[in-house]
């Protein structure tokens, strides 16, 4: 009997969807807008995330060693650093010779400096370790590894005698500001996303409520012939799910040309993320999110909207 009931409910839902063509079309269009907003927040989240990652990637700290520092000790510090959970491996070791070559390369047009360097007769530059944190906010805890005292950067003294200096202090302000910007951007993005999604869902819910309002007499008749609550609700629930599914497919199709069109722009403007490539490479995930959101919003809205008229 349960199977027959389910079959009848699904059947009635399909028929109701098909026969109320204009109403179905307008509901679908409203839901397309909602799902479009949800999809757009996925894309903007990806753009924001990728941009922030690129910026984060440009932030690092350098540990400068004294010129007499033995290579084994530097390498042992490097190995210890790589064990830290906050660090994004690899920690790059730049030898004294490489530092000198890089220095000469950077000052190749500055004859005066190069001449002064030659006059010294020996390499005055120490080796360095280049460190990147997984998150900019973690630099402070990484710096504490070196036993540096004081966050004011005025009395920094390392527990390692071979370390000349750590340029965290010079970068601290920039890192702090960037950390704040990243956190604010993430928070703002999250609030905006939630706000837009809630608004879109409310619009869809109200549209479906109007559709069901038109069926209120029908619902009361169903009640009076003795139909159970679920038997009345079922077809509306199914029709809502169909609205959601079709809207999701339309939205996914619409995103195809739009992402192609925006692909190059986003790639040039937002440090390297081509939105079309992102769409195609994450299609499975985006498909699931959009379709599940559509079906859930459609069916749950219909389910809730029928409640009012089922009190007879």
């Amino acid at each position, binding site marked *: *009997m349960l199977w*027959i009931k389910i079959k*009848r409910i699904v059947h009635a839902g399909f*028929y*109701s969807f098909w*026969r*109320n063509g204009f109403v179905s079309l307008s509901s679908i269009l409203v839901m397309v807008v909602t799902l479009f907003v949800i999809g757009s927040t996925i894309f903007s989240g990806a753009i924001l995330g990728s941009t922030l990652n690129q910026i984060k990637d440009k932030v690092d700290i350098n540990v400068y060693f004294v010129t007499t520092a033995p290579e084994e000790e530097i390498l042992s510090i490097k190995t210890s650093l790589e064990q830290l959970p906050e660090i994004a491996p690899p920690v790059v070791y730049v030898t004294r010779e490489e530092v000198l070559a890089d220095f000469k390369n950077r000052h190749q047009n500055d004859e005066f400096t190069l001449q002064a360097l030659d006059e010294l007769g020996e390499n005055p530059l120490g080796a360095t370790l280049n460190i990147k944190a997984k998150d900019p906010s973690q630099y402070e805890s990484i710096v504490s590894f070196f036993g540096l005292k004081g966050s004011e950067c005025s009395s920094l003294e390392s527990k390692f005698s071979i370390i000349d200096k750590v340029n965290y202090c010079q970068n601290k302000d920039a890192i702090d500001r960037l950390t704040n910007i990243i956190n604010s951007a993430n928070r703002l993005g999250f609030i905006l996303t939630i706000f837009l999604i809630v608004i879109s869902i409310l619009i869809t819910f109200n549209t479906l409520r109007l559709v069901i309002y038109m069926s209120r*007499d*029908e619902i*009361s*008749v*169903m*009640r*009076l*012939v*003795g*139909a*159970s*609550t679920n*038997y009345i609700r079922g077809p509306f629930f199914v029709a809502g799910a169909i609205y959601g599914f079709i809207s999701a497919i339309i939205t996914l199709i619409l995103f195809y040309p739009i992402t192609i069109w925006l692909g190059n722009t986003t790639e040039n403007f937002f440090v390297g993320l081509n939105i079309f490539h992102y769409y195609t490479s994450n299609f499975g995930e985006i498909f699931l999110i959009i379709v599940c959101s559509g079906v859930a919003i459609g069916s749950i809205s219909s389910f809730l909207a029928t409640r009012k008229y089922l009190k*007879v």
Partner: protein
Amino acid sequence: MIHFDKVSKIYLDNSIALEDISFSIEPKEFVSIVGHSGAGKTTLLKMFLGEELPTKGKIYYESIDISTLKKSQINDFRRKIGVVFQDFRLIPDKNVYENIAFAMEASGRTDEEIEADVPHVLGLVDLERKMWNFPHELSGGEKQRVSIARAIVNQPDVVIADEPTGNLDPLNTYDIVQILKKINDLGTTVVLTTHNKGVIDSLKKRVLTMENGKIIRDDKEGKYVI
């Protein structure tokens, strides 16, 4: 079979819809309830169908007190009652066949029973040829006949007809009354509310006359006297 025991209905604004109503209806009876608009006829039917609860008194169907029924029990109870409305209340996006089949589906009848009974009941109201039409393709009289077919398809014990001829011309009114009489002759209790003097006078059945929420007359073979 149906018994109203000192039933009153007072709304929140203190307007009195029914006041101390008591009467009984026996099985296979044909009872007409007459009265001006606002006399309380529709409220009385709504309370019998469990759409509204009485403020005072009790309503019995056989030995069941309707006001004590739970929601699922109300559904079961309503399946024993056929209802015909003045405004037909057909489901607009279902065709004639589906409108009637819906009442059977709600009662948990099988597909085979539905396929056999729907054409049969449409034959009783002379509408087999309109089986696949939608409500907007039917005349008022035809819609009301579909509504009656839907009301009787589950072979209910009682058919409630709330002003079924209110929107119909005299010819269709006559047809509908004849169908209701036929249903009654086949053993179903019929409760009819109407304004139509001609209908009441031609029926020569029991008439309850209501005024201001009270029953002022109960005549065995009554006429329309207001």
